[in-house]
């Protein structure tokens, strides 16, 4: 029986499309409702922006949350995550994660810390701490 699977009976043909080659079954734009950038807040999340669950969050069971939103919320449950980690953990493209995070931010589910602006490197104390930390690794 099994060896016939590759040639397949006609009713099995449909499933042949869903292999890895075909790419994701759900297209990125479907997960974001066609949006390519986060909502009205207009925030562009840096890859190292840190996302923390808001303890006072209304809860992820609210309406309007898709499965991918919930995946992100679940990932944040254990610890604060960077945008890059969320993208890797959810196996979603960064662009999609940004849009979904925009939703979560607006809903008040998460808080997002912005990274230090370019012109303003962290102070010397922090750099020294980093060096000490690296030495101690």
């Amino acid at each position, binding site marked *: 029986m099994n060896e016939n699977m590759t040639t397949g009976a006609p009713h099995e043909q449909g499933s042949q499309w869903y292999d890895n080659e075909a790419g994701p079954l759900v297209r990125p734009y479907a997960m974001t409702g066609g949006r390519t950038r986060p909502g009205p807040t207009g925030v562009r999340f840096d*890859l190292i922006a840190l996302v923390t669950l808001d303890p006072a969050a209304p809860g992820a069971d609210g309406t309007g949350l898709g499965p991918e939103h919930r995946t992100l919320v679940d990932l944040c449950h254990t610890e604060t995550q960077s945008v890059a980690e969320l993208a890797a953990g959810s196996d979603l493209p960064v662009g999609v994660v940004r849009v979904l995070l925009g939703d979560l931010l607006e809903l008040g589910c998460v808080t997002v*810390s912005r990274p230090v602006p370019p012109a303003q490197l962290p102070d010397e104390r*922090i750099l020294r701490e980093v060096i000490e930390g690296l*030495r101690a690794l």
Partner: protein
Amino acid sequence: MVSEHSDTAGGDSAPLALKILVAGGFGVGKTTLVGAVSEIKPLRTEELLSEVGQLVDDTDGVDQKVTTTVAMDFGRITIRSGLSLYLFGTPGQDRFWFLWDELSQGALGAVVLADTRRLEDCFPAVDYFEHRHIPFVVAVNCFTGARSYGAPEVLRALDLDKGTPVVLCDARDRDSGKEVLIRLVEYAGRMHTARLLDSVS
């Protein structure tokens, strides 16, 4: 309201993440270096490129609107709770330059990995960071079998700005990688202080 915690004066309260880029030619060991020092297995993020990317990508005659993905490897080092260092291996191909702009925004600095057998591969990265005044160190990955050059020779060959550190390293070795990062953070600190002094004088 969008909550922002970009003020670092608070110190320990808001979690702080710093970003270091690892750049260099294809196959020079960027991911290896990230993996050697990272406390997590290097993770991979994908960025979807739309047509904008395709325009930049000047391949003659190819005008299909395909979305391409470009992968970036990254790792993390937790210094303490609330302070972590993220390392990003930059995409090797030149056609992804525009991604570098985003990556380098707010970066503490960069490591340019070089292979003395193909030193020219790291020229674009050196140019990029010099032009944008992003502190960087050149780390010469000493591949076994490659003729070893001293740091001064590499410094001269790359025509680096005075003071740019050149470090010999083994990208597979954790301690060696740590040393490279320490040199970079020290250098970034010096550059920053110098700039501060410049702006007040």
